[in-house]
């Protein structure tokens, strides 16, 4: 089943007289339970790509269908709703609410769905348990390690049961051991049927994925499925 359809997506930034083509004619289909990595050097347009996929940003041109909906004509509030229902964000810098504890952070997206506190708590605890943080629910972000913070962020992304999980350099701020742990968690989530799109510049990370799209100067340079046996070839 096609979850995401991008047709001729462009994103231009006008910087004075100069036009930066952050994305330039992107065509991609993403299917349910894809495990996809965007790789490419810095400035190649990966984050721009992910922001558009996550409905945080709008393309300059082109068509974007998400789960059958054309995103183009939606207003800010409708986009918020889409983000809330369809998308789970995982950021490099975690982006947790500093004054809310782990539980509060995970419950936050459910507030926008008018779910009762009791139910919210239940769902949040379940998500935190899923990422192995059931014993840290009352910790504030600054009382957690980087890996734990990213787990809270993953729990927050999972709790709404979105169609896609989007991660922009999710391990960029983590040490190698924690990186392995987080990637294992992604592997498991993929195994459970989630659709994951990960932006990374580390081949180590990309190796976990089943499809790798390499970007260059805002275009797709290479889009290849990775056979289980041939994963090592990437190195």
């Amino acid at each position, binding site marked *: 089943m096609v979850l995401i359809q991008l047709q001729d997506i462009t994103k231009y930034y006008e910087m004075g007289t100069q036009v930066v083509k952050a994305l330039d004619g992107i065509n991609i289909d993403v299917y349910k339970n894809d495990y996809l990595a965007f790789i490419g050097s810095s400035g190649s347009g990966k984050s721009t790509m992910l*922001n558009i996929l*996550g409905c*945080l*940003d709008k393309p300059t041109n082109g068509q974007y269908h998400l789960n059958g909906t054309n995103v183009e004509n939606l207003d*800010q*509030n409708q986009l*918020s*709703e889409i*983000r*809330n*229902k369809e998308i789970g*964000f995982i*950021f490099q810098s975690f*982006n*947790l*609410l*500093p*004054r*809310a504890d782990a539980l509060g952070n995970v419950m*936050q*997206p459910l*507030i*926008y*769905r*008018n779910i*009762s*506190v009791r139910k919210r708590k239940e769902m949040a605890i379940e998500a935190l348990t899923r990422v192995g943080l059931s014993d840290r629910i009352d910790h504030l972000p600054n009382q957690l390690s980087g890996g734990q913070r990213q787990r809270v962020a993953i729990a*927050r992304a999972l709790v*709404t049961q979105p169609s896609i999980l989007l991660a922009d350099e999710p391990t960029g701020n983590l040490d190698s051991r924690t990186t392995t742990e987080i990637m294992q968690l992604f592997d498991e989530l993929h195994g459970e049927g989630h659709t994951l799109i990960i932006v990374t510049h580390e081949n180590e990370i990309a190796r976990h994925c089943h499809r790798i799209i390499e970007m260059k100067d805002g275009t797709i340079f290479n889009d290849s499925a990775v056979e289980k046996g041939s994963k090592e070839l990437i190195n």
Partner: protein
Amino acid sequence: MLFALFESSRSALASIFAHRLRSFLTTLGIIIGVASVIAVVSVTQGMSAFIGDTFASLGTNSLTIQSYTPFEDQMKGIRSRLTPEDLELIERRAEGIASITPILYANRSSQIKYGSQTAFSQIMGTTYAYQDVAQSYTQLGRFLAQPDNLTRRRIAVIGEDVRENLSLPENPVNEYVEIGGEWFKIVGLLDSMGDAMGMSRDDIVLVPYTTMVSLQGNQARTDIQIQLSLSDSAELEEVTTQLTTLLRNAHNLSSDEDDDFRIQTAEQLMEEFNQIIGMVTVVIGGIVGISLLVGGIGIMNIMLVSVTERTREIGICKAIGAKRHHILMQFLIEALLLSLLGGLIGLATGFGLGTLIANTIPGFPSATIPLWSIALALGFSGFVGVLFGILPAAKAANLDPIDALRYE
């Protein structure tokens, strides 16, 4: 919806208390505004409630006539007077009067002595009719009687405070006190009337009017005050007109001259008082308006700072699904709670101040806050919070999620 409100209020309170000092300083304008209005209202309300009672006890159908000298005339040494002849004239000619009594204040010394004790008191010469006009009755002994006046007896009826100040026995009747070098026998002790406007109404000595006249010696300068109560069927206006005509004729005033006396009802006195209160209220209202405005601007300023500080947070919330109204409500409620908290603190401070003022001045009526002033104070501060919170809240709600997330 209600639930979302609760949710927003909780996190708003959390962020207000996260910056306690800043929040306090921000609301200072509102605190001062509300505190000053509540302090003034609580004092004036206590006062007017009390004065209302006082005048009610004077009776709505009683009149006071006093001589009145315009200020320029006073400077020229001219003094208007009400004389015993005026009293006689009114007694003889005026209709609709139930009781009438002259009051002559001691004009030299109001010193009173008992044994080795000396005290100062308000000494008034009056008649038996005073008790009906002033509604002041004796608890022990008797009041002044008609024969006392006819024979200029040296007797006195005293108030509770005088008894205490002079260390007179519990029952002072038949004791002798010295007033103006003459001995007076105490024949009665008045009921306690309590305090009025910081002055005791029990610090009073009543002697027969004629006795007072003879004490003062020089009758040519006598200026009396006349108190009277109307009979049930009498119309206040008619009696007033009648008295005015009588006195103007008696004083030979031509039609272009002003009255050299004042006829006042208890209600008129109260009206005058209420006018003063009204003016004070308007002035205070202005002060409060300005300080609420300043307070509102303070709140707007701090909310704008808060929006900027939390730009990234706003971005996060939008990324995970917050709609415009979620963010708007969040900041609006924060501004509202901030100013309401200021209002509450102001309310408490104002009432504390009012109570302090009322308690510091002896005999001052205790401070009361009418419910409307609480509602008004909170209503206004809430209104200010919402009014000045809208701009920052709208700014927050309109942030572009991607820009907000990128904000460093």
